[in-house]
């Protein structure tokens, strides 16, 4: 497909992420085919070289994440993308990126799992994304878009945050957003990039340096870990993003992210027309997770409904956030089933009637 000339275009999620990456200054993409994100690689194979970048279809997802590491250590903006099984393969590489303090963007277009799973959209990789995924004490910033426009905006943000914190950032999309087409406004290409004096490009005019995550001395390793933890605390303090939708007078708050939140919004619109006071709290960063904001909700709202396309993952973060306050109802659909707004409205409505209307009598 040809590169968009106008800045408002109809794009599929996968194409949008690719185009946004180019505009964010990404000049290196290394990836391996896996459905439902192949269009990202296909788009970049054509357009990244046009932008002066390098595209390699690597021999595996393991090899791609390591190529990203190589480009990142020289100071370049580099990206890889995959889905479930491929993201599992990348975990060692992501841990190395975090340990070596290198910026990188990893896109996960989630599909059904576990194992080979299926190619339908799903949210079953939440734990893998936000609990670290790979070995060791580290975190990646995880951004969960709810629309193709948001996917574009969060891709631009991902590269910025990766460079700002010298840490890998994950974009947690799903097959639904990856494949669907929506009109988007594309941003201006980034022209100014941060200076990376830490990069390795040959020891000219300075002492030689090395980039590594092996620290045999345990006290120095502990110190390094606390340094990383301070970074993660800074991310927690500064980078939380979320959306509040019709929560001001709500009696029941739905908590959902990504495509599930999109569908839930549709359900809530229906229910509001029937007079039910339902609202939505949508984390946009699922790491750092907006624990405090959810805890604040418990001041005015007592009923929570967690809706995700998995068997209960973000649910645990919500439970942690609420710390026993309020009542949580969980509705989850793992395996790639995507209920319609009508289906979800029935579930929310029925819970609302059980918990709220009845109590009012």
């Amino acid at each position, binding site marked *: 497909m040809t590169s968009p000339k106008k800045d408002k275009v109809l794009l599929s999620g996968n194409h949008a992420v690719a185009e946004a990456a180019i505009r964010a200054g990404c000049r290196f993409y290394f990836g391996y085919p896996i459905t439902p994100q192949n269009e990202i690689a296909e788009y970049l194979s054509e357009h990244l070289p046009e932008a002066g970048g390098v595209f390699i279809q690597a021999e595996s997802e393991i*090899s791609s994440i390591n190529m990203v590491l190589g480009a990142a250590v020289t*100071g370049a903006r580099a990206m890889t993308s995959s889905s479930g099984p491929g993201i599992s393969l990348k975990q060692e590489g992501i841990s190395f990126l975090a340990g070596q303090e290198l910026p990188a963007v990893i896109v996960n277009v989630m599909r059904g799992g576990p194992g080979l799973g299926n190619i339908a959209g799903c949210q079953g990789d939440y734990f893998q994304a936000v609990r670290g995924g790979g070995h060791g004490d580290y975190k990646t910033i995880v951004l969960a878009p709810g629309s193709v426009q948001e996917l574009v905006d969060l891709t631009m943000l991902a590269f910025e945050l990766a460079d700002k914190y010298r840490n890998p950032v994950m974009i947690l999309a799903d097959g639904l957003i990856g494949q669907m087409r929506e009109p988007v406004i594309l941003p201006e290409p980034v022209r100014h990039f941060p200076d990376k004096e830490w990069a390795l490009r040959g*020891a000219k005019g300075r002492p030689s340096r*090395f980039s590594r995550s092996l620290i045999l001395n345990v006290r120095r390793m502990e110190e390094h870990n606390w340094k990383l933890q301070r970074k993660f605390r800074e991310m927690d303090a500064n980078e939380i993003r979320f959306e509040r939708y019709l929560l001001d007078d709500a009696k029941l708050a739905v908590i959902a992210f990504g495509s599930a939140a999109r569908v839930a919004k549709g359900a809530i619109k229906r229910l509001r027309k029937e007079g039910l006071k339902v609202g939505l709290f949508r984390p946009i960063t699922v790491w750092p997770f907006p624990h405090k904001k959810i805890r604040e909700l418990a001041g005015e709202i007592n009923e929570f409904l967690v809706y995700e396309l998995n068997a209960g993952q973000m649910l645990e973060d919500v439970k942690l956030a609420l710390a026993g306050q309020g009542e949580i109802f969980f509705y989850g659909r793992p395996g790639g089933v995507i209920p319609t707004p009508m289906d979800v409205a029935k579930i929310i409505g029925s819970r609302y009637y059980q918990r709220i209307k009845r109590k009012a009598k």
Partner: protein
Amino acid sequence: MKKIYGRPKYLKARKFHYCPGCGHSLVHKLLMELMDELNIADRTIGVAPAGCAVLAYDYMDIDIVEAAHGRGPAVATGIKRSVPELVVFTYQGDGDLAAIGTAESIHAASRGEQIMTIFINNGIYGMTGGQMAPTTLEGMKATTAPKGRETRRDGHPLDLSSLLAQIPGVVYAERVSVNSPRGIRQTKKALEAGLRCQLDNEPGLALIEVLSMCPINWKLSPVDSCKWIDEVMSKKFPIKVLADRRIKTTRKAVSGSVD
């Protein structure tokens, strides 16, 4: 009196942690001599492996990046594609290159990445305490083959360099050994040829395999380890040029050295 030989300036003034008679020490020395002689120290990046040479940056006074086990060629690909003017080499052992990193080794070669891969073949896994490697010879004992390698159970030793040499993207491949004065000089020439492939913009990967002594894990003295390479190991892994597809050069002698 004039000093005609000494410690190369890009070898840091630090005692090697390598065992007495280890091939790594010799290869590190030769490589750092070349950094000086070819004047490329400030535009070279080395990719260190998981293995005894994981601490290569403690000795080599050039920019070094650590790679996960076996992934050196992928990391080197990212570096070289990002800054093509750099001289980039991977430094890998048998496990790194021929076991866990087999795919990365083959595909970097297949793509013709303009990097040099230095393959330190000691027929065993040194750092982790002497387990069997893909290159362990039949009958050779290892901690995971206590009665010696048996082809029926463990497969034959793998000569990955010969496989790689068949790939058109490999522009130069040579096997040498550091087990004798002659071998050491030959190794230095081979390493220089490998580096020159990048300096001459040859369209592909240079692979230099070095048969290296591992006295502790072979349970031989350093001098006997050198003999064992001559008498046994090089019969299975012959010392020779495995591929030469260079366009610009044929084998050049390093000026000043006598073979």
